């Protein structure tokens, strides 16, 4: 079904369709709480008439995730949405869902954490939750949001994985703009998503305690199990993409995707909607005969280290565009890529912090970054592209 809709509408539609698809199993449940720019997703879900499901408007994000946790350990398909400070307030239960291996899917609309208050896009909110044992997907477009939510359910609920998943996208740039989206038919979603099965759900015939105390030894073993489940994700994701094509006739991007990378000497790494802007700049420079390419990172947890190392094998210069910062260190995608590209001394690897707090990342800004990168003879400290700071002095 082709529809002209906002990113939030697409996310709400697909979350609801996924919940509805579990009607012949244990149904679905969601706890929801509004926060700009995510609010419309919850509104959409509250308005949806589920055959077997309930979306409850609760009093906080903390309880929204708690309700998903309760629903999931009772065997239902569970999902919610949030942003920014909402995600921070939810954080304790985000950990619980990950550590208890409950396959909740969370549509996260990236927004700057305050105070000072700012509703515009910044990836710092979801990236602050990077160590919570959740899968992280970062989406470029409206279509990618819709498709990735389905992929996320498929991978999260897979018996080899059983981990919750965050599907993140840009506040306003995607959430509040409209674009044509191919929204899936319910019958196809039913075909694509098998009934949700949580093997450790509550069982009155076999009483167990979920989340009981553990020794240091058992804790370490538990973390290793989680890590091993993470490591199985890339292969399971590939399978989920193949099956997606069989059902829907198109294949969404995978963990990473290269754009004109084949012979590229200079590569810009981007995520979320910035990837679209970089794509345009790459085309322009290619027309000028420059060997420029882009690497889009969609899967952030687990971090596809080996795939990235492989994809950047031929590159001489790599510039990472980060709309986020780990203060006192650097851009978070850059930090991860440093880890992926360790022991590559000849490579120039440079971080560019730009668009923080929702500043526009225009094609001109990307070209500036490219000029800077081309002029570099060696890697340097993260480079802040901040106009307001210069104005301050």
């Amino acid at each position, binding site marked *: 079904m082709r529809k002209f809709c906002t990113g939030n509408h697409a996310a709400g539609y697909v979350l609801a369709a996924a919940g509805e698809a579990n009607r012949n199993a*244990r*149904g679905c*449940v969601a*706890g929801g709480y509004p926060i700009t720019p995510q609010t419309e997703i919850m509104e959409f879900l509250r308005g949806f008439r589920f055959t*077997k*499901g*309930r979306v*409850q408007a*609760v*009093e*906080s994000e*903390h*309880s*929204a995730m*708690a*309700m*998903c*946790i*309760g*629903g*999931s*350990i*009772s*065997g*239902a398909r*569970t999902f919610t949405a949030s942003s920014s400070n909402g995600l921070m307030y939810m954080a*304790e*239960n985000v950990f*619980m869902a990950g550590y208890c291996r409950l396959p909740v899917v969370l549509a996260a609309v990236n927004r700057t954490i305050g105070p000072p208050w700012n509703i515009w896009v910044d990836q710092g909110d979801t990236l602050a939750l990077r160590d919570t044992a959740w899968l992280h997907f970062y989406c470029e477009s409206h279509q990618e949001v819709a498709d990735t939510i389905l992929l996320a359910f498929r991978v999260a609920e897979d018996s080899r994985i059983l981990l919750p998943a965050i599907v993140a996208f840009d506040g306003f740039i995607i959430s509040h703009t409209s674009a044509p989206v191919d929204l899936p038919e319910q019958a196809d979603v039913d075909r694509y998503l098998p009934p949700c099965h949580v093997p450790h759900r*509550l*069982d*009155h015939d076999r*009483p*167990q*305690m*979920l*989340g*009981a*105390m*553990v*020794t240091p030894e*058992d804790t370490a073993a538990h973390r290793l199990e989680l890590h091993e489940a993470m490591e199985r994700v890339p292969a399971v994701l590939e399978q989920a993409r193949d099956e997606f094509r069989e059902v829907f006739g198109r294949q969404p991007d995978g963990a990473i995707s290269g754009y004109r990378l084949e012979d590229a000497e200079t590569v810009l790494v981007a995520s979320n909607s910035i990837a679209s802007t970089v794509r345009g700049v790459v085309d322009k420079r290619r027309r000028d005969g420059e060997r420029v390419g882009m690497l889009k990172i969609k899967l952030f947890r687990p971090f596809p280290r080996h795939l990235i190392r492989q994809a950047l094998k031929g590159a001489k210069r790599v510039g990472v565009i980060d709309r986020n910062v780990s203060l006192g260190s650097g851009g978070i995608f850059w930090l991860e890529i440093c880890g992926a590209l360790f022991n590559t001394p000849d490579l120039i690897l440079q971080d560019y912090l730009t668009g923080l707090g929702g500043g526009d990342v225009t094609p001109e800004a990307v070209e500036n970054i490219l000029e800077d990168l081309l002029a570099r003879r060696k890697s340097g400290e993260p480079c802040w592209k901040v106009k307001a700071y210069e104005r301050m002095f």
Partner: protein
Amino acid sequence: MKTEVNQTCCCDALAPGRRVLRAGNTNCPGCGMSLALHWLGRALPDQPMTLCIPAGCAVVTAGAYPTTAYGVPAVATTFASAAAVAAGIRIVENLNNDPGLTFCFAGDGATYDIGTACISAAAERDEDIIYICYDNEIYGNTGGQRSSATPQNAVTTTTPSGKRRIKKDMMKIIIAHHVPYAATLSLAHTDDFVRKVRQAASVRGFRFLLIHSPCPTGWKSDPEESVELDRLAVSTGLFPLYEVFEGRRFRINVKPDFTPPGEYFSRQGRFPKVIADPELASRHIREEWDHLERMAATFPAD
């Protein structure tokens, strides 16, 4: 006003029950929470039940993975989330017509303090759960710090010269939500205890049971005196036994003889003689009972 003195025999309650909390648990001797779980199992021997337990002694008592002292499925929730987790469980169980009851089983720290917003919201939404608070008037699990349930003048590790303010009245807060059923329970009045648990189990929606639960470790009392202390808490009038239907209709279950509260204080190390103020406590008791009796007389349950 109608009051009922304990007259009914509790032989029904003495029928073999299920063991909600089994042997091997780590509770201290004389723990009121152990007794509460014992009587919960006696009251409801058959129905499937799930316990949502926020951080506190009731999590620790289960012991370490892979064992558990609980005889029913239990979830160790985050501290402030028990009511929302329980609501999520029950919503799905109701969607699937699963029989049974979903409980929160929480201390006063989780109930009076950190989880209050979550409880208030679950009560306002009339979630189909039974919230039990075992109120020992202290953060027992972290070694005895004040909570807002700690009574006036009680010494805790964070109120070394006695708590200045009076105990929060959680019942009034819950009643203000007009929930189907709210009641106070004493471990010294077990027939009343069992009847109230069954009453809660017989209705749907948000139900709240507040259990006065001695903590010999925190109260610096003799473990063998726990039940006696609970009896004194009721007879002094400090802990009124009553129930409220739909937040509007009141019934007082035990009319105290107003034993002087000094008797109750003197048996607990948390009320040192130099700090305890039985006169002041008596005044508060009279004022609170005046209010409760007026409510029960004006808005009787029967």
